[in-house]
């Protein structure tokens, strides 16, 4: 059984149908990249999976268990699904360390000591121990985004959603963030990434889904989608990326 089953999901804002009759299964340890033009619904889809947005119809299941509809313990659900945003969204009034230990201590009831030890181990892996007691404004964008990833990992999620996590970064900072994602993929983390980094998607993804108007327009292994796309829209999208020097 797939880890995540997105089953005929539709999401409307008033009359605008952002996700329409969308179905996708994600296996455990799978890395899926969502690509597609801006506004095609990548962020919305990710936010529906951890229910930051409510879907209008259809259902989403995790391990076969329905997580949409009333009565689902959202706080419980979100403990197990990490999300990292394009704009990092670190809490500006907390230090790096405080950002990372907030949820483990306040949600899981972990002791402060234990949480700090765990956080420092993570920070060591991303070479940021020296920034542990700094506020986010003292960090570069790349460093902030790495901390945001650690903050999500502190909850030991079974699924990680990454929403264009390098889009706000200067080009030379992109790789330090992607290195972590590469490491996570190698470690077997199940991930859904919305991304514009085609080179990275080709390397790390098990499957690439090209989204168009809230639907999966074409999907398959990276080599097929990026090397030999079948659909007209996919070809046009990749052509425009190539023109802009992004592919």
């Amino acid at each position, binding site marked *: 059984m797939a880890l995540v089953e997105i089953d005929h999901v539709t999401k409307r804002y008033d009359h605008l149908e952002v996700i329409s009759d969308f179905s996708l299964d994600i296996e455990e340890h799978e890395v899926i990249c969502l690509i597609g033009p801006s506004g095609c619904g990548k962020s919305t889809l990710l*936010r529906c999976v*951890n229910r*930051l947005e409510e879907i209008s119809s259809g259902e989403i299941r995790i391990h076969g268990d329905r997580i949409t509809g009333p009565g689902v313990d*959202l*706080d*419980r659900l*979100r*403990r197990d*699904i*990490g*999300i990292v*945003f394009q*704009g*990092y*969204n*670190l*809490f*500006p*009034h907390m230090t790096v360390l405080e950002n990372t230990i*907030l*949820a483990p201590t*306040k*949600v899981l009831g972990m002791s402060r000591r234990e949480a700090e030890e765990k956080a420092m181990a993570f920070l060591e892996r991303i070479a940021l121990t020296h920034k542990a007691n700094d*506020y*986010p*404004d*003292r*960090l570069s964008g790349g460093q*902030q985004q790495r901390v945001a990833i650690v*903050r*999500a990992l502190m*909850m030991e999620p079974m699924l990680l959603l990454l929403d264009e996590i390098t889009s706000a970064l200067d080009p030379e900072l992109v790789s330090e963030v992607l290195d972590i994602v590469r490491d996570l993929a190698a470690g077997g983390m199940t991930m859904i990434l919305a991304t514009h980094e085609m080179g990275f998607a080709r390397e790390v993804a098990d499957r690439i889904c090209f989204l168009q108007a809230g639907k999966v327009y074409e999907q398959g292994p990276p080599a097929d989608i990026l090397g030999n796309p079948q659909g007209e829209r996919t070809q046009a999208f990749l052509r425009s990326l190539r023109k802009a020097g992004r592919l």
Partner: protein
Amino acid sequence: MTDHIILVSQDEAGRAAEWRARRSTKTYRGRASFTLMLSALTCLVVAASAQHIGSYAVSQGVSPVAASLPGMIAALVAALVLVMAASAFLKSLAAGRQEDVHTARLLGDEASTRSWKALAWTGALLIVTAGAWFMVVNDAAVSRTFFDLVLIRDSAGKVLRAFGTNILIFSVSAVLILVWALVIALARTLPGAAGRPLRVLAIAYGDLFRGLPAIITIYLIGFGLPLTNLPFLSDLSSTSYAIIALTLTYGAYTSEIYRAGIEGVHHSQVAAARSLGLSHVKTMRYVVVPLAVRNIIPPLMNNCISLQKDTALVAIIGAIDAFNQAKIIAANNFNLSAVTTVAILFIAVTIPQARIVDKLSERDRRRMRAGG
């Protein structure tokens, strides 16, 4: 040809020559000469006023040194300003004569800056001089009524002691208000249909007490509660009634400030907190309220200053605060100088707070710029 948005002329040398031909140098002659005239006039006015007011003060028994010192300082400043204006005018003349464009621009720029400075100083001097005249006209009626130094000195002790009441009322109600207003603000931002009854109640409270003038609330509570014969509530001191009334009034205002702060926290921060599994309450407690409070420190402190001043309103329910005490002294002496003491006290405690607000908000602004 048609695939260019704009076609730029190929005659580069011609365009460069045209550009250079159009350059000009501003000498600011008009501003400099006006400033020179005005500052010369000001110099005369200040000197004459200093002379007149100084000799009047001496005739009233002020020591000659104390009487002439302010006038001499003012005259000196006026002379310096005149020098500044003159130098601006000279720079402007030099700028006009100068052949080299860059030097001329430099001179013109200095002429302009100095003229503005001299003008600003001239304005300030004229205002101060007018103030000095206001104090001494009509046989120094203004000074006598408001600034009777002897009476100020003699009444200072009593007024200062009564000011303790103001400080007590202020400190207790400030703490109560900060807590009470947060409760109201949280009630107003409760989510969902379940939160509605409390939301509505909070809105009604806010509307009621923001509409009521503070002085009426104080009057109603200070004179009304004792008449109710309710246990405990009917036999409090007038200071306690003042604290209750001010807390109710300012709680309504302050809750609006909190609410603006809470709603001003960017929704991405809430999304980040919720996505980590924090509940609504924990998100409020650890993320939204701490961020909101930082954003609203300036308006909160301004409210605080305003509260401090409104402690003087308790005089109407007979609490012997500094203002009431001063009014008694003023009535006995047919002179308002004791009230001036109160005014000075209020100002003296307010100014440091205003500076603290500036410092705090500057520090937090720097920190909040990141994160988003």
